């Protein structure tokens, strides 16, 4: 009960954005990692990261609001990191799109192959590409050596 009280007492509000993205329903604890993996720390724009926000659906969740021009955004990274997250694309203060987030078929340079016998360990400039080989079990394998992500 105390937690609910705190939730009410310490409800944090971040203002509306006029152009950019709202990544919502991120599993609690993944927000900061997603912030880094999306390269948001390198953008010259306002970013709000809310962690451990209360959620009726998820209990706790993270959320990222990015105020930036809506040209390109890496949905694959979001899908790979947390495919249950949702994205709202905002323009002129209104939601203009809700792109579907799903597990990407391939991910490039988001994760690295850690197999010391893989060519990616020595070949300069070679992208680290992982391929979704089992969508049910969410298994990704290195394109080159087929090592399962997380196995090494």
């Amino acid at each position, binding site marked *: 009960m105390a937690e609910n009280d705190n939730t009410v007492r310490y409800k944090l509000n971040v203002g509306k954005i006029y152009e950019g993205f709202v990544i919502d329903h991120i599993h609690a604890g993944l927000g900061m990692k997603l912030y880094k993996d999306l390269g948001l720390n390198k953008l010259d724009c306002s970013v709000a990261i809310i962690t451990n926000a209360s959620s009726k659906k998820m209990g706790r969740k993270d959320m990222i609001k990015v105020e930036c021009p809506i040209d390109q955004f890496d949905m694959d990274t979001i899908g790979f990191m947390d495919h249950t997250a949702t994205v709202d694309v905002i323009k002129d203060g209104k939601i203009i799109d809700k792109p579907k987030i799903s597990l990407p078929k391939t991910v490039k340079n988001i994760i690295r192959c850690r197999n010391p016998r893989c060519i990616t360990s020595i070949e300069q400039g070679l992208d680290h590409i992982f391929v979704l080989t*089992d969508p049910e079990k969410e298994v990704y394998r290195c394109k080159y050596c*087929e090592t399962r992500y997380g196995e090494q």
Partner: protein
Amino acid sequence: MRHLMTPLDLSVEELEKLMDMAEKIKADPEKYSHVCDGKIIATLFYEPSTRTRLSFEAAMLHLGGKTMGFHSADSSSATKGESVADTIRIISCFADIAAMRHPKEGAPMVAAEHSTIPVINAGDGGHQHPTQTLTDMMTIRALKGHFNGMTIGLCGDLKFGRTVHSLIRALLRYDDVKFIMISPEELKIPDYIRDEIKKKGAEYKEITKLEDAMEKLDILYMTRVQKERFFNEEDYVRLKDYYILDMKKMELAKDDMIVLHPLPRVNEIAVEVDNDPRAKYFEQVQYGMYIRMALICMLLNIEIR
């Protein structure tokens, strides 16, 4: 332009056609002795190999072509730090086709991505060795007539033994092939290969004693415990002589069972077995050259009639 990275790059129909081509070449080698006149194969071997490299070179020479290349990383620009991508770009200017062996897994795929000539994976680390698989498949078809319904025992280093991984994948495309995998606990097949077997619903067993499998087998595929794949000398010494096929074990096997081995053999098949008519591993080497001849022709779009 096509490359060969894994045995699955060829459909079952293409594989059957390739084996038919190899049979034709084997039946009348003279007829095909000039089909590759003026063509060059580059054998890019970043780690030592006798059989595979010489098999590729013999294959090209028997087709009338020529060979060039290197047989260790020390004699290539890799020692100067040249990337695989750059090496293949250079080789593409000199040769018509390349066969690459590399200790790093996936290196031939990197080469294929940057090549303007067909690249054949001649073995990449503990990963894939598709032309050995083509050799094994051709030997089995030639000696047993078919693949369907066969029980194959795979014995030895199933963890690092790339020939085993490739062979399992190729055989999984045929009906009702049963696998008995015989290995010490530390050298069991990787999970991704086991997953593929399960996914296909093929019957398989994993056991540690070779004697327990002998009477059930149509084919016994022996492998060497590969020293170069171990990071730890102690583990290698402990496991290297885990299995030795001798005449006592052969007595348990069917009369028409065949013994195959990708070679080189160390101690895992006793020399006394060589004289048994079921020992087919030296015959297998010859099939290897014919299937490579057919592969070279196929990738160079040379028709074999």
